[in-house]
């Protein structure tokens, strides 16, 4: 198992965010995570990349439990977990070459990382990653000077450069147009497939999730509502998943849109 979450619960700020989560991702599997805003997608990915520790239950990543590892072993494990964040965490004044180059910080000695700031050793490899996300021209540009979609793609390029065993992407295409969003997801999928790495992507675009991923997990109010092969995800299930949330692109899927009041369930 590449990622295994067993009866895991998570509290943040005293609030129960995730409850009784159970899911298993085999090595090389590609899974989409969908659910309304506030359902806990980002938090679940946080459990998977060891930035959150479950309050109960167990999270096992690449055969190891992050919560039980010492500092050194945890670093080694984390170097094999890549994350693309919903909001790309890139310092505005950092140049793209270093933002992407940071993907290898865990695997190279400190002196190398420091020297890279003046004398980048891997310019060609970094440029190749930027080319994969269709941004060959920004290599020496500062991240703060990029558009939101460009920043998001620099974040993807960093994970490509890291080349981890487990790829976690939190709404990696939310700032991209539909065409480019699909292309970027395919880039992630191709990369994962070529290295037999595992890919877990949270998406707001339900159509992309259904179109590109063989397995879809629906998260609602901190619980797994369904975890099914894509073929078995019915419109009724999607309706239940997004019930009370009329902000989703449901019409594109021919799902009747409910009025917020007709379906129960607290909304944030």
């Amino acid at each position, binding site marked *: 198992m590449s990622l295994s979450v067993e009866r895991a619960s998570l509290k943040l700020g005293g609030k129960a965010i995730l409850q009784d989560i159970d899911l298993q991702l085999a090595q090389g599997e590609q899974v989409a995570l969908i659910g309304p805003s506030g359902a806990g997608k980002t938090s679940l990915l946080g459990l998977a990349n060891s930035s959150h520790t479950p309050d109960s239950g167990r999270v096992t990543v690449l055969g190891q439990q992050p919560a039980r590892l010492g500092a050194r072993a945890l670093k080694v494990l984390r170097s094999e977990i890549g994350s693309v964040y919903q909001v790309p965490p890139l310092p505005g004044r950092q140049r793209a070459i270093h933002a992407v180059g940071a993907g290898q*910080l865990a695997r190279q000695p400190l002196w190398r990382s420091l020297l890279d700031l003046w004398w980048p050793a891997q310019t060609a490899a970094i440029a190749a990653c930027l080319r994969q996300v269709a941004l060959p021209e920004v290599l020496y540009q500062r991240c703060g000077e990029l558009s939101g979609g460009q920043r998001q793609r620099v974040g993807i390029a960093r994970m490509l450069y890291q080349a981890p065993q487990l790829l976690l992407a939190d709404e990696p295409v939310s700032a991209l147009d539909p065409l480019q969003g699909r292309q970027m997801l395919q880039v992630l999928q191709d990369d994962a497939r070529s290295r037999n790495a595992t890919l877990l992507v949270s998406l707001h675009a339900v159509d992309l999730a259904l179109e590109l991923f063989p397995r879809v997990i629906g998260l609602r109010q901190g619980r797994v509502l369904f975890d099914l092969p894509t073929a078995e995800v019915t419109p009724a299930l999607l309706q239940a998943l997004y019930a009370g949330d009329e902000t989703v692109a449901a019409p594109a899927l021919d799902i009747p849109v409910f009025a917020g009041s007709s379906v129960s369930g607290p909304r944030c």
Partner: protein
Amino acid sequence: MRLRHPPLLRGLLQTLALPLLLWLLLLGSQLNFAELFTPGTLATLGKFLADFFPPSHDAFFLKSLGEATITTVAVANLGMLLAFAIGAPLALLSSRVLLGDSPLLLAVLATPIRALLLLLRGVPELVWALLLVRVVGLGSPAALLALGLAYGGMLGKVYAEILESQPQAPLQALRHAGSGRIAALVYGLLPNALPELVSYTVYRWECAIRASAVMGLVGAGGLGQLMDTSVRMLNGGEVGAILLVFMVLVLLTEMVSWLVRKVLA
């Protein structure tokens, strides 16, 4: 979920606190503006100023003026170097940025180091100089050490604050991908923090030039000591010359720091 506004009263208190504090400070300092401008004081001031011109320029005085200037600048620069050597590591070792949230590390390292930094900057550099003159004797080493200690405390505190006030998400993201503490700091925080860090450092350097001159007054060498002698001898021409050099010095440092900031921005 938070639907309420922050309480109105608290906002109001926060808005009023600053003017109130300034007023209290003014009261405390017992400044009497009227007394500064009586005809008597103005006349004395005028005579004093008139004595400054022409500034002294005999070879012997110029030579000691040159030496004192070099001493003052050297003390300021070396003092800043010492301050940086003290402040930068202590800033890192006392901030969450490097230590993370581990309560043990914070208790064992951060708290004592913060106390040390407070002690270093809590004693004004002039007082450090007075104390050190007793220990290492009259002359510039005392001034250099005094600057290094007092400014080391200031740099340490402000560096830590600058680093902690940056968005921490980039650093956290790198840590969660397995990066070491220092590498994550350099790649995640430094790019954005650097302008502020450098800007504060050159500002401190400007202050160091001034402070270095002042410390001469307590026998720690440089322009201040020369000034002390000239004032005691009521030699207005020499005082004028020293002040002139001093103004040029300050102007030059301000130009240098302006340049540094411009290059960095």
